[in-house]
């Protein structure tokens, strides 16, 4: 089980002939992902790595391969176009890795996507992985993952790997791991992902990793308190960050009291989450909660 992807997911990569796109298309394929095609305008008819067909348009790729997920590695000025092209071609799930899309472009895209049935993960995210289905759609190192029953959701990339590494080291496998992205506006929210984990019979526990800035963690806390039925362990990073400074993620600017770690942790604790005390304790906290479940 797991969320968003499974054995029937058929993936195309937009930007497959680019430096990043080709590297990660190869890594996803090596992990076992069902990569059915790629799209680069002007390079239609070529074969990527002598076996994956490249198309000029997403519509052609969908027509020929039955693709139902598009993974996007297109530079920021062209990424909005790539996203809308996939939505227009009827691809129901889009994962956009691209970092640096102007926020006002995302505002418009987000508005447009709400009028379609399409789900966007990202942008500025590591993607998602369901180890049990051998399906990796993103830039995470596949080798650190194990199939299992813990869901992971985070705003970050490498910190998600850190969490997964700590879990796998203790023999705790993952159902699905989703990075929603570090930008102020993302296609999929924490609440969206938590709702899917809540409905997934393959997930027993969720590890949730938030960070300073905005109020996304408080929105998640409100949902957890009202509807979430599974145990959840949470960590919010950025306690050592100074106020008003941008720490790499545009969404992580501390704008007020509610954006601080203390406020977010308090909201999650109030919602019944088990608080992970430090970034070093992700694995052992999850292990302790799992033992109580037995």
């Amino acid at each position: 089980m797991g969320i968003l992807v499974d054995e029937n997911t058929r993936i195309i990569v937009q930007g497959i002939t680019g430096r990043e796109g080709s590297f990660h298309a190869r890594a996803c394929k090596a992990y076992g992902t069902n990569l059915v095609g790629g799209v680069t305008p002007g390079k239609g008819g070529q074969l990527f790595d002598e076996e994956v067909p490249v198309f000029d348009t997403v519509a052609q790729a969908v027509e020929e391969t039955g693709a139902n997920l598009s993974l996007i590695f297109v530079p920021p000025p062209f990424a909005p176009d790539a996203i809308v092209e996939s939505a227009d071609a009827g691809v129901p799930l889009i994962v956009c890795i691209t970092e640096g899309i102007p926020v006002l472009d995302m505002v418009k895209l987000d508005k447009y996507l709400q009028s379609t049935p399409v789900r966007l993960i990202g942008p500025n995210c590591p993607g998602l992985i369901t180890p049990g289905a051998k399906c990796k759609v993103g830039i995470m190192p596949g080798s650190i993952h194990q199939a299992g029953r813990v869901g992971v959701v985070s705003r970050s990339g490498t910190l998600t790997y850190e969490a997964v590494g700590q879990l796998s080291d203790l023999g705790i496998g993952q159902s699905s791991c989703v990075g929603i992205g570090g930008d102020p506006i993302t296609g999929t929210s924490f609440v969206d992902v938590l709702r899917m984990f809540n409905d997934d019979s393959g997930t027993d526990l969720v590890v949730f990793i938030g960070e300073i800035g905005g109020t996304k963690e408080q929105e998640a806390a409100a949902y957890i308190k009202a509807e979430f039925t599974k145990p959840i362990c949470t960590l919010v990073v950025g306690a050592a960050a100074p106020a008003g400074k941008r720490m790499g993620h545009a969404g992580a600017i501390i704008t007020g009291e509610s954006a601080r770690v203390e406020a977010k942790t308090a909201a999650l604790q109030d919602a019944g989450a088990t608080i992970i005390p430090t970034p070093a304790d992700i694995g052992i906290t999850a292990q302790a909660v799992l033992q109580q479940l037995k």
Partner: protein
Amino acid sequence: MKIHEYQAKEIFARYGVKIPRGKVVRTPQEASRATEELGGQSVLKSQVHAGGRGNAGGVKVVRSPKEAEDAAQQMLGKNLITRQTDAKGVPVNELLVEGLADIAQETYLAITIDSSHRGPVILASAQGGMDIEEVAAANPDDIHTEPVDSTLGLMPFQSRRLAAKLGFSPELARPAAQAIHALYRLFVENDCSLVEINPLIATGDGEIVALDAKITVEDDSLFRHADLYELRDVSQEDKLEAQAADLDISYVSLEGDVGCLVNGAGLAMATLDAAKNAGASAANFLDVGGGATDEKVASAVEIILSDPKVKQVLVNIFGGILRCDIAARGVILAYKNKNSSLPLVVRMLGTNVDEGKAILRDSGLNVTFADTIAEAAQAISAAR
């Protein structure tokens, strides 16, 4: 990217938003002449990329050209330290000399992107001229939030509502609404992340004037705003932060003594937190990015080693796209270039980790290896 008040006001004027008469000066003599042209009295405003200028002595009212010259002599060429700067402050190279305004009413207006509204919002308060963070903390109801639909844009009724929330009388509602409309257009067309006016005033003659102006342009959109990028003033940026930005490295200078090299913003924040929990304190936040080469890693480490506060260096790399052997070579290169012998704590995981560790072990550098983030934090605090 921040720009100066006078640059922001030039943009305001282009959009039809009224600003006070004024002139940018770089010498005391120019300040004197500008004051004379303004009728013998003026306000001198330090042009720095930091708020809180007024309380820090960065804004002075002068009653004669001579007074202007003396005040400018005091202000120019010095560093201004405000509550938003570090202890060094920021250099004052330019002053904006403006005529004194006849203030009948002071209000606060700002436009920004709010992630919970998933778009632009306009903030309006009748409590202008004060520290807005204090207003927000003490009387949050005094700040009105108006979300704007990105497809429709700001609708006229919203501008009218905002004018009323600012507390303007019905006669002023029309010019105020026009100004708000122009500012929203400016915000969108220039890809701003913040436009802020504190105060937006009504004068005795019934004009709406932006007495102050703050514009922050969103960094990710600068690729399509070459004209705005030319307004960048590197003198206002932390030297190491500016150097890092030019190399596309995300770096923020902090107060502690542990230099940190990390890949990924989230992991970098977690590393800072882990150091703090172990009783140590980071000298910087640094995310070297995913696709870094050994030269880029070396540049990043050289920036860390250029910081005189740094007494030891912590490397925390989760190798994915960035391979550990590349990171190791970069670190060694930087230590060689900087001829440094500072102790090094290295935690590496993921792609090519054994090779990376072997390269560092054979380098002759003073390296302590750690397997986990917790061990790394302990190793740092033990070395203190």
